[in-house]
């Protein structure tokens, strides 16, 4: 087990940190699940953190000059390279501490990006940083498309979903590929901590983020982030969809601690995927055959995960 986890008791709903590290007045759409997830991430981390943000919705909506929503030190350089920027921050702090130029006090280093920044264009930078073993955490806020540029498909866009570059038509039914498994790619880097999380399970999310920060070396948390604008869903239902994704096994919650898979929430009686799919315009065009395929594949993927958790 990881020694740093021993002292950590976990967050409690009754005694949640009051401090908002992300200020109101940010420009996210109404009911944005991504900024809500980010708010929870920041609550878990507290103020002793340096944030390296990839280009994307969260960067844009929190930093239109001269306004910033950030109450912590924050840097944005470009789209694909947040993990490399974080490598630099971490390396600098390491040497500056050694040379006694900055206080010894530990400061968490957070690199954060969307699913595009993480799983597509930035994969190499993240892989490099993970492989080199920098002491930082990477959080992917997965809203399942390139939202900032107007809802284009990414490797994390789910099967069948309509986006502006995976439009259904006479010869197409939307996204033709299955969601890329980024957490598995992270696990393959042999890093000490990988987890998936959902803002609907906020204590679980915050505990995982805190553990990712506590662990020495690189850690990765993949957070499901409903986007009403991109999904064509009602803003008020963002948390509901985040919950449904877990209850239908579409987005399972688990941790991988030093290679061992641990299910955070075993779904015994799963709801049918249709519960999750309906109410989102991006899935509206799907016919029964497609939904059937999604149901089978979701079940199969969940089984694989269960087997991994039993094996390890």
């Amino acid at each position, binding site marked *: 087990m990881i020694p740093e986890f021993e002292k950590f008791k976990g967050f409690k709903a009754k005694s949640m940190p009051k401090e908002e590290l992300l200020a109101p007045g940010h420009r996210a759409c109404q009911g944005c699940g991504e900024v809500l997830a980010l708010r929870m991430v920041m609550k878990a981390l507290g103020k002793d953190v*340096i944030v390296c943000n990839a280009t994307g919705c969260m960067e844009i909506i929190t930093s239109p000059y001269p306004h910033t929503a950030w109450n912590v*030190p924050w*840097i944005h350089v470009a789209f694909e390279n947040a993990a490399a920027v974080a490598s630099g921050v971490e390396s600098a702090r390491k*040497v*500056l501490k050694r040379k006694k130029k900055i206080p010894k006090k530990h400061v968490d280093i957070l690199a954060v990006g969307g699913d595009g920044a993480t799983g597509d264009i930035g994969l*190499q*930078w993240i892989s*490099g940083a993970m492989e080199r073993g920098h002491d930082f955490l990477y959080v992917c806020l997965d809203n399942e498309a390139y939202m900032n540029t107007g809802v284009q498909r990414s490797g994390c866009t789910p099967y069948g979903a309509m986006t502006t570059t995976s439009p259904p038509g006479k010869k197409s039914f939307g996204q033709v590929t299955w969601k890329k498994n980024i957490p598995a790619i992270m696990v393959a880097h042999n890093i000490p901590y990988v987890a998936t999380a959902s803002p609907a399970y906020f204590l679980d999310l915050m505990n995982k983020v805190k553990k990712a920060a506590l662990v020495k070396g690189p850690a990765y948390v993949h957070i499901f982030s409903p986007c009403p604008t991109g999904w064509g869903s009602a803003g008020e239902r963002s948390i509901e969809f985040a919950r449904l994704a877990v209850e239908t096994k579409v987005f399972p919650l688990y941790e991988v601690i030093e290679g061992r898979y641990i299910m955070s929430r075993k779904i015994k009686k799963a709801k049918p995927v249709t519960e999750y799919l309906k109410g989102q315009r991006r899935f509206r065009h799907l016919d029964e055959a497609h939904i059937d395929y999604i149901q089978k594949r979701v079940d199969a993927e969940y089984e694989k995960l269960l087997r991994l958790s039993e094996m390890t």
Partner: protein
Amino acid sequence: MSKRVGIEVSIAISEAVGLARAEVIPAYPITPQTHIVEHLSEMVANGQLDAEFVPVESEHAAMSCCCGAAAAGARVFTSSSSQGLSLMSEVLYIPSTMRIPMVMVVANRALSAPISIWNDHQDIMVQRDIGWIQTFAENGQEAVDLTIHAFKVAENRNVSLPMIVNIDGFTLSHVIEPIELPDQEDVDKYLPPFKPRYKLDPRRPITMGPVGIPEVYTEAKMAHDMAIKNSKRYILKAWKEFEEVFGRKYEPIDTYRTEDAEVLLVGMGSICETAMTAVDQMRDNGQKVGLLKIRLWRPFPAQEFRKAVGKTKILAVIDRCLPPGAVCGPVGAELRSMFYKIPGSPKIFSFVAGLGGRDVTVSRFEEMVDKARAFAKKRPRELYQVIGVREK
């Protein structure tokens, strides 16, 4: 005491970076820059230099890592060439407008295709507008001195800009030269520890790299432009202090036998050494020829350049870069626009030479001077000439 040693220029540059006490060195190998970072990694490994050497997975990551490290308050160095510099390109524009200082040595090399590891200035000329301060070194001693100077300038709180020292790949990077390596004490005296104006620090949270809406973008760019223009006085000041401490004098534009010259060759980097030999020979033959060396490329020292030209009426400008479809090479274009419609300004002829490792021999310089004289009498049809290119 400073010591004079026979040493490969790349190794001497690493030693200079060590003397400057660089703290974070993110780097990725590429010929002909590799020896610089290999030696730095060795220096870190054997404890000679207390720094973090970050063996990143690409040049884009190297530059990104540099941004993070310098923003967090460390003294940062990296080095690259050619394809690597091009891969960095997206990031290069960012620390300069964000006023994040760092130093990079670029071992200049041709760009693909065809792939070529040999020297010219194509790699840096396509990065002309990244908003970094840029100098060109002529020899190994200069490479060492300009590297130390670069930290001093970049980190000056009134400057706070990233800076590139260009050295010619192979013709400079890989040669062994007698070089005076400065004394650590003198370097420490010259170069105080890095104290950034702003840095990423939870004790004083700031937001770096926000969105520039149309109301602010122009102002942000103008502020950057003025910062790099104003940096010239600090560049000159740092050279003056350099002379006081180390005894070697540097200026933005170097002149060689320019007095009463009818034709001036204009070059930058290591070809100036051959150009000086050519000037000597032409002078021996009674030709009134001289040489101008551009040491400071960005900000362009227009005033110093005009002064250096003096009354000379013909300039033969050498570009080590061929921008296809353009009216001429970037140095030629710069000088032409600078002198445009200024009364009494010289006639400027643009030559492209020394691409992809092609030697520029003494006779080639003579050819350029002859052509420039002929063109001054009868304007050529082309706006520039490629020197030493075979037709068949």
